[in-house]
């Protein structure tokens, strides 16, 4: 008798063939097809996503380069504007200073004039008052000097005495 280990049994051959065929067709239709399709679809979608990401990255690089340029330009513009503003400011300050100076001079001169006028007026007033005062004092002295008849006489006498009738 043959070694049973290496003698294929016909029944097992028939059943294996049958079962394997059924397994193959059912799995092929209901398992492998949808699974392989899903895996492929996903791989395609992942590839698409990666491609998109790469493209986006490139766009981002381009965009950031653009941004850099824009930023530089903006910076330059800003510097320019700052420079302009500084000039304008300086000019304005200088102008203002000049105007203020003239104005101040004008105010000072008018003030000086006013002071001069006031001084003159005050001096005039003082002179008048001194004059009035002098007259009053002279009047009082005269009144004192000519209070009596004798005094008047003496005065006339002295005055007459002085008259040199040559």
């Amino acid at each position, binding site marked *: *008798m043959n070694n*049973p280990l290496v003698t*294929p049994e016909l*029944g*097992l051959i028939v059943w294996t063939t049958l079962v394997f065929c059924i397994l193959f067709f059912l*799995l092929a239709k209901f398992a492998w*097809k949808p*699974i392989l*399709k899903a895996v492929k679809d996903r791989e395609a979608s992942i590839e698409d996503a990666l491609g998109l990401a790469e493209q986006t990255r490139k766009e981002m690089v381009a965009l950031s380069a653009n941004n850099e340029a824009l930023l530089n330009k903006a910076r330059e513009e800003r510097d320019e504007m700052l420079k302009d503003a500084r000039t304008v400011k300086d000019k304005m300050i200088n102008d203002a200073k000049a105007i203020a100076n003239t104005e101040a001079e004008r105010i000072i001169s008018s003030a000086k004039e006013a002071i001069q006028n006031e001084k003159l007026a005050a001096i005039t007033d003082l002179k008048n008052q001194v004059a009035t005062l002098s007259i009053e004092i002279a009047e009082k002295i005269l009144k004192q000097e000519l209070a009596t008849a004798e005094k008047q006489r003496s005065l006339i006498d002295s005055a007459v005495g002085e008259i040199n009738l040559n």
Partner: protein
Amino acid sequence: MQPILRGGKLRLMLKNNFIKTLVFSILSLIFVCSTQAQDYVEITPKHDENHKTESGDEKYDPIPAIMSHVADAHDWHFFDYNEHSYSMPLPVILWTEKGLVTFMSSAFHHDNLGHHAVEKNGMRFIKFNDRIYQLKDNAPVEYDIEYVTKPLDLSITKNIFAMLMSVALLFFVFLKTANFYKKNGAVAPKGIASFMEALIVFVRDDIARVNIGEKKYMKFMPYLLTIFFFIWFNNMLGLIPWIGGANLTGNIAVTLVLSAFTLVITNINGNKAYWGHIFWMPGAPAPVKILLLPIELVGVLTKPFALMIRLFANITAGHIVVLSLISLIFIFKSIAMSAVAVPFALFISVLELLVAFLQAYVFTLLSALFIGTAVAEHEHH
């Protein structure tokens, strides 16, 4: 090998036990078969006395025990306890000259030595070394080998039952996986799909695409995937004692069928260049061409033949090594021996897990390679 009258000891089956009832109820759901009680005829094969004296001295012989574990069987044996054998009967389906005969393997009452003949449709059947023979009508009570014929045996044997279970498991796993994608679309896989997808992509990218080529590999993907997972699952299930344990992919009939599929698929897809290389090797002088023709023709068969032998030998060898290690305990008749046998058997079992995957991979890889050579577009120099 051994003469016909050699085998394990007579096994009796305990009726009305729980396992049998359970298993019977499961089986009756799966298979439509006649389970009526059979009439027995006590018969005695000649030379049986030798065996009885042999088994009388209680010496454990590991070879028949291992061989019966590695070989196919007509019932699913679980264990022996108190001289009783506990096993799941399987349907016997025979095609005889009088037509189809079916009965449950329990009708043999665990006889594996041709003692019990099952009478059915006026024919007598005996089981010897897990193969069923028909007794000729004129067979005497003490029959001999010339009184038996072999009917066409289409029984659901242990291996076929294991194969059906593995197929059910394959359907469960991969329809679940397919269902995941149907439900969720092409998203990142989760659960069972995430594990299986890695393997499917492995088969696709590292086996099919590499060996068959970008243009044609998709056509062969279903076959390669089926064969890969069929072999792998059955290799793995064969390593589980009791619930698996059937040596399906270590059975030459199964590997024969699988390699025959590869043979057929390779050759029906063979293109002009493939056949050209077989019949009229381009670029060789005419006498060499004639010399190469028979070599190439034999090569067509030897390639799948090597596939058949490789898978069969690898898986059977693994089973034999594990069983031999466990047999040490019975050879030395000492439980202390398990301290040696169990770690070694564990080591080999873990190694077999690797072999289970590796052999599935190698079978699929070589199938893809053969298909690849058959469909390859050769540049003309």
